[in-house]
């Protein structure tokens, strides 16, 4: 075999299964690829020794006939999952040197099933961002070349400030970049307003945000607890299904975790979509939408129609209020969750004249500008006199958003098809420096799903006129991820296959 990193997760699983490849060989190949791709900045910590050790133990387990569902498969882990004794900072300065004494439930499920950890992946600080530019560890570059750029020009930019290179999206930018650049078989990610699905769309990968409660949040660094959910980013729909099955499952340590068996999502791949009803929400046709996005959306509906699904127009009247309401609910919850970073119990500490001074100086230095901004907004909307006008009103609007979806599903719609992002990937340094709201608009199609707690899947469906990946989003009924996997696989089957970016960074 020439390059084992070219295999998908399912293919690697088969190669390990028939002993044509060992986990140690596969892990070595990934560690070598990661070493050559340092410039992309996808990893903030590489756990090479531990990876090889896990791979050796895995090969031994397989030899004894005790292989788990992810046996020997090397994965990347977003920096917000607590990994015992290993770098866990949600890419924030305020968590300097934090290495937890415990393992998150989601990652412990992966190790239980035999997976190998390659390292921790870059992300926007505390998952607040849509371009991975708010990370304390600097931006991540997408493996996709900017239109009309030569590999030489891109390589030179990689060695400098990375300006003009494409962002992989965010907040799970490291996860998306690493999967697209073949620096891991697949990666864990997390999604509060679109942080799995927008990066997947930008990098031509598959991202799934499961139903709220499907995965345990225990051991994930919290951003907005009523919206946060774990999920995979993978190279294709099947790989995402395999990974989600291991990540999901009941956990008594998260009181919002759903207590029901996890289906074998992989069996939904290739399942007929004949007779399913797909809703096309008219409110997602936003002003000034790019022609290529509109065309892609129509094309996606046609593919599903050709596969035997029925396509109907539906209405989700409160859609336009979702993003503004999100920018009240999410900062409010963040201001409460992030109150714990005080310079006393872990991470960065800046001395002050008194205890309040210590708190204020530590938090001023430890949080980046975007996090500080959101914490101040959250503090304001929860403060006396404003709580009802902002926070309670936003939560009422959230009820209306959820009701819209319930009405559509009750009308016999099995899933909803929408664009994933308003545009293809943009450049590092291009957006949001003058007005923070410009960056927020990236999540206009994804944020409704978090507000309603529903599952959403993004799969690559085409390319922009410049040749950049574009994705489509499928939104499902609560806990009906299986239908999304079946439909996502149908779109994947029909869509022209994207060419993997050549490794210009190596």
């Amino acid at each position, binding site marked *: 075999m020439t390059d084992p990193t070219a295999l998908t997760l399912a293919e690697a699983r088969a190669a390990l299964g028939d002993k044509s490849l060992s986990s140690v060989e596969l892990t070595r190949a990934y560690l070598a690829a990661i070493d050559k791709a340092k410039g992309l900045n996808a990893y903030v910590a590489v756990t090479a020794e531990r990876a090889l050790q896990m791979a050796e133990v895995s090969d031994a387990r397989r030899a004894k006939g005790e292989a788990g569902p992810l046996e020997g498969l090397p994965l990347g882990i977003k920096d917000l999952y607590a990994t015992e004794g290993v770098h866990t900072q949600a890419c924030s300065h305020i968590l300097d*040197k*934090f*290495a*937890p*004494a415990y393992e998150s439930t989601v990652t412990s499920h992966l190790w239980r099933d035999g997976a190998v950890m390659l390292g921790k992946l870059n992300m926007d600080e505390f998952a607040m961002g849509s371009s991975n530019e708010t990370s304390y560890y600097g931006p991540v570059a997408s493996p996709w070349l900017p239109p009309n750029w030569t590999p030489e020009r891109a390589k030179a930019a990689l060695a400098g400030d990375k300006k003009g290179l494409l962002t992989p999206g965010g907040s799970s930018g490291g996860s998306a970049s690493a999967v697209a650049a073949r620096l891991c078989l697949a990666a864990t990610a997390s999604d509060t307003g679109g942080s799995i699905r927008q990066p997947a769309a930008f990098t031509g990968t598959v991202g799934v945000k499961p139903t*709220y*409660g499907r995965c345990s949040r225990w051991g994930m660094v919290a951003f907005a607890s009523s919206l946060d959910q774990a999920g995979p980013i993978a190279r294709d729909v099947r790989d995402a299904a395999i990974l989600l099955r291991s990540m999901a499952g009941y956990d*008594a340590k998260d*009181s*919002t975790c*759903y207590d029901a068996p996890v289906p074998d999502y992989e069996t939904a791949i290739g399942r007929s979509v004949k007779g399913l009803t797909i809703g096309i929400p008219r409110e997602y046709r936003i002003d000034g939408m790019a022609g290529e996005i509109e065309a892609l959306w129509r094309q996606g509906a046609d593919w599903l129609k050709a596969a035997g699904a029925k396509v109907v127009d539906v209405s989700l009247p*409160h859609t*336009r*209020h979702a993003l*503004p*309401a999100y*920018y*009240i609910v999410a900062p409010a919850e963040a*201001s409460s969750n992030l*109150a714990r970073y*005080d310079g*006393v*119990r*872990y*991470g960065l*500490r800046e*001395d*002050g*004249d*008194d*205890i*309040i*001074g210590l708190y204020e*100086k530590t*938090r*001023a230095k430890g949080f980046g500008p975007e996090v500080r*901004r959101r*914490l*101040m*907004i*959250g*503090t*304001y909307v929860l*403060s006396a006199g*404003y709580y009802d*006008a*902002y926070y*309670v*009103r*936003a*939560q*009422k*609007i*959230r*009820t*209306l958003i*959820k009701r819209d979806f319930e009405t559509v599903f009750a009308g016999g719609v099995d899933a909803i098809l929408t664009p994933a992002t308003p545009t293809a990937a943009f450049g590092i340094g291009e957006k949001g420096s003058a007005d*923070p*709201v410009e960056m927020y608009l990236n999540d206009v199609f994804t944020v409704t799903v978090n507000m309603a707690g529903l599952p959403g899947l993004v799969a690559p469906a085409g390319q922009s006129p410049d040749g950049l990946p574009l994705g489509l989003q499928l939104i499902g009924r*609560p806990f009906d991820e299986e239908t999304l996997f079946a439909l996502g696989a149908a779109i994947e089957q029909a869509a022209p296959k994207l060419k993997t970016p050549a490794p210009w960074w190596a």
Partner: protein
Amino acid sequence: MSVDQAAVRRIARLARIAVDEQEIAHLQDEINAILSFVEELSAVDVEGVEPMTSVIPMRLPMREDVVTDGEIAAKVLANAPLTEGGFFLVPKVVE
């Protein structure tokens, strides 16, 4: 609604984030940009609508009221910037 500079200082204090005097005007602009973005919500009819408390209808699970964890002081303190004799160390709070 919009905030003035005094409000920005008050919010920063409540959020326990030290802010330099020269940052105030800039922060005020940014906060007001976000507040104007969410302004449209005040026009939505929410009469009789219950605020969302849980996206998935579920009963909070109950458990026995017993100690399930503990005796791990060393682990709890392992990441602290400053400790002494099994305690977190902070500046003097009470004179």
